[in-house]
């Protein structure tokens, strides 16, 4: 990552401006927020003392379309904008925000945040300089800039393809959401970082009715793309997936109850990692020693077949960011290497506590929220086993393919994931589909039971949102096909 600062003037014509320059130019032109304004606010924030302050400017534009009963039912959109001001004093954080970009209102917010400080100290002059950042999602035409009328065809295609899949598909709901987020972060240690973040998400819900049996399934995808996404992920393919899952469920049998070996299919099964280790390895929990992974850096926490990475640098992925919401560049962070815990995902306060470099994981939902360590794209590296061999290794168990969500208790490490498409495995063969079921395990224990890791790493396709302490952020997950030798399956058949 380049450490040389770019000149203060945005763009010198020699190369396209990076994300920081683009964002700085946006806020300067639109709201008159330039370096002197920011430097003044930072000084105001530190006027009562304090060790650190940052300003987080956000302008988020969203657009949405709802297609249901074969008609464009609703169109929507809006703008969310404001600045969040944070002051850190020792271990305490003061925070205030305003939606009003007038000097008075922003200064007022800075003074409110400043009240947290207890040690009086004259802040020196602060000089913010833009940092250079690569752009992992150089979308030429963000979908938010495309007129809504031009997107309707995509929705119609999805609807038609879902209905064409099977006559039992009686209802289809397609929704398309896009957004463009400009953010600019100025810190009291002189950094100015920014980003322009596009996001696209399509969701297709299908209802299949066969006599009295009604089944629903949801599919879709997206990421930090423009509409070119649909050239390689057609609305037809995405819709057919949702329709297929809904139809399949009519034949689903009761899932078993008790402990079984489970094969997790490549891709969305990464939700296992997100819950089993991801949250537990967020540095705030470990700094406070509330996580069951506290104090375990350097110790084995998983089978030696497991190497788990959190990587914000994957091009165009939903979970990727060029810079985190504290102005630190993202990185590819190895969390677990060959089963041994390497470190935690940091935010500014935790990195300072642990005496490490920030890892680019300090994220926040909007300017109204304080940052904390969050995941980006979390996945396991591929192993040596052929995926077919993994299924063959199971005499009786479950094969899980698609998920509705997961959750974890980071204190004791118990985690769950709820499955929406899964099958029985009998004598190494995939047999009957099973009804929706939730699996429960315990992080270190379950990961120590990973006995085969496939060579087929796949990333999930743009659908996941992570919730923590009331803040949602978009994330990605990934996995190769994996065998867990034993986990509790919450079915009904004993």
């Amino acid at each position, binding site marked *: 990552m380049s450490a040389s600062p770019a000149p203060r003037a945005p763009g010198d014509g020699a190369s396209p401006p990076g994300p920081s320059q683009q964002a700085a130019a946006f806020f300067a032109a639109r709201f008159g927020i330039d370096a002197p304004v920011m430097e003044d606010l930072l000084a105001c924030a530190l006027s009562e003392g304090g060790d650190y302050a940052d300003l987080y400017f956000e302008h988020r534009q969203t657009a949405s379309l709802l297609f249901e009963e074969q008609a464009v039912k609703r169109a929507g959109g809006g703008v969310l904008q404001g600045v969040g001001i944070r002051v850190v004093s020792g271990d305490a954080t003061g925070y205030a925000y305003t939606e009003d970009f007038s000097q008075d209102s922003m200064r007022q917010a800075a003074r409110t945040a400043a009240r947290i400080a207890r040690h009086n100290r004259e802040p020196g002059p602060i000089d913010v300089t833009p940092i250079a950042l690569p752009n992992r999602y150089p979308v030429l035409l963000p979908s938010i800039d495309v007129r809504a009328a031009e997107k309707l065809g995509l929705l119609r295609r999805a609807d038609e393809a879902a209905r064409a899949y099977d006559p039992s598909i009686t209802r289809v709901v397609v929704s398309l959401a896009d957004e463009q987020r400009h953010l600019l972060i100025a810190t009291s240690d002189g950094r100015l970082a920014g980003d322009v973040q596009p996001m696209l998400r399509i969701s297709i819900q299908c209802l299949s009715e066969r006599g009295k049996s009604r089944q629903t399934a949801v599919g879709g995808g997206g990421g930090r793309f423009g509409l070119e996404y649909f050239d390689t992920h057609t609305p037809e393919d995405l819709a057919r997936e949702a329709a297929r899952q809904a139809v399949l469920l009519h034949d689903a049998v009761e899932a078993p109850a008790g402990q079984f070996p489970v094969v997790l299919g490549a891709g969305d099964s990464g939700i296992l990692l997100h819950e089993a280790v991801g949250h537990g390895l967020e540095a705030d929990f470990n700094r406070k020693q509330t996580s069951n992974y506290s104090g375990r850096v350097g110790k084995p926490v998983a089978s030696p077949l497991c190497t788990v990475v959190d990587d914000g640098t994957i091009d165009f992925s939903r979970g990727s960011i060029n810079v985190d919401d504290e102005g630190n560049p993202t990185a590819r962070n190895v969390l677990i290497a060959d089963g041994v815990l390497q470190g935690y995902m940091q935010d500014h306060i935790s990195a300072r506590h642990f005496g490490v470099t920030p890892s680019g994981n300090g994220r926040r939902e909007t300017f109204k929220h304080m940052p904390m360590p969050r995941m980006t794209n979390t996945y396991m590296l591929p192993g040596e086993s052929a995926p077919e061999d993994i299924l063959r290794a199971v005499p009786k168990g479950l094969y899980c393919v698609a998920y*509705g969500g997961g959750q974890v208790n980071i204190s004791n490490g118990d985690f769950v994931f709820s499955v929406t498409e899964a099958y029985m495995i009998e004598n190494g063969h995939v047999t009957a589909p099973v009804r929706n*079921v939730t699996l429960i395990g315990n992080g270190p224990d379950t990961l120590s039971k990973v006995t085969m890791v496939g060579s087929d790493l796949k990333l999930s396709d743009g659908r996941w949102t992570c919730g923590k302490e009331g803040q949602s952020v978009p994330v990605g997950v990934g996995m190769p096909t994996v065998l867990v030798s034993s986990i509790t399956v919450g079915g009904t058949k004993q």
Partner: protein
Amino acid sequence: MAESLLDIAEHVVKLARQGGADAADAVLDSGVEFSVTVRRGEVEKLIEASARGLGLRVFRGGRCAVTYTSDLAPAALARFVEQALDLAAITDPDPLAGLPDPEAWAPPQPTDLAAYDPTLGDVTAEQKIELARRAEAAAFAADPRVTNSDGASFSSEYGERVLVNSLGFAGVYRASGCSLTMEAIADDTDGKKRNDYWYTAARAFADLESPEEVGRIAAERTVRKLGARQVATQTVPVVWDPMVARSFVGNLARAMTGDALYRRATFLIDREGEQVASPLITLIDDPTLRGRLRSRPFDGEGTTSRRNEVLVEGVFRGFLMDTYSARKTGRQTTGNASRGVSGSPSPGTTNFYMAAGASKPAEIIRSVESGLYLTEMMGFGWNITTGDFSQGAAGLWIERGELAYPVSEINVSGNLVEMLQDVDMVGDDLVFRAGTAAPTFRMRKLVVSGL
């Protein structure tokens, strides 16, 4: 001269009409929030801010757009309304889309809701910090095994909602709320920690329970988890503690909305008027209750609030509706339109609760020879279309009518159609601590998955 928020909302609706909308409504929410977290005796976080947002719905020839903004400057509003009208033009006409009929707000609104506590604004930051400190100190003092804390937090918010529509409805109400939460942690073997929390929440500051009580109960709930283990897979009676009982009721409500009905995505379809649950269960949605956390004079479309008896002694009386879902299904709105600033209204609950029964909670536990006292659930295992239910769980094992030892890393599962019929005891311990509430209840059987 400052314009009131009501003036702004009226202005926006007028602009929409002038711009060609047949109908429009605008919701304007403004509020002030404060939140402090104290950890290990010191202030860890303090947030204080005010915000406001405007949401607009426009209808033109049956076409609909829903937009939002926080920029209330006159020039910005003019552009905002224009954009909404442009967006509506690309949608398809829907003859059922539109505002409620004026009869919906003809009945007089309830006036004695006590939704706003005027004394809340006088409580200082120092007083709030002190309450959080006391709650945390009480948790540590309650049991030496509580060795860590994820903080005690005090939050308060107050604000105003304005709703105006082009058929002549204009309504304003103020609301406030405050809460105190404490999360305690105890160290267990194997690097595991056990955590739990307790809290108090109310509209009025004076109605909050004492911080000492909050801290003490947080500590109790935490230490009783020490040594939790899995149990063997079996089918047993399950007693639901009020926290999970409330979560059960809240999730069940999703199957009882007009949206789920017209989308045919509920297991209760075609079952109005039928005995779908045990006669011990009565479920009510009531936004007219004085002092409760979700009380309001009118819903997100202006319909006057009313009490709705959704399930009475096990008989399903009907779905919770907003105007659109009511028209789609040939029924009437029940005043349950939920509406945020960004987004369209959709049916949702207000104060939604299971009525108290006759049994003492201790009696319910004593009735179980061997089974689960469920205190926690995790996951997304609710399928409201089919009724399939499967959730991660934790709690205490009941042996010969006594709470014997803690259990975790288990699952509970079944199907809601049977589960509702299987409720065979309902407690008298209904306490409102949130928008949804339920007493302790017992289900005669559920599959517990473990070893």
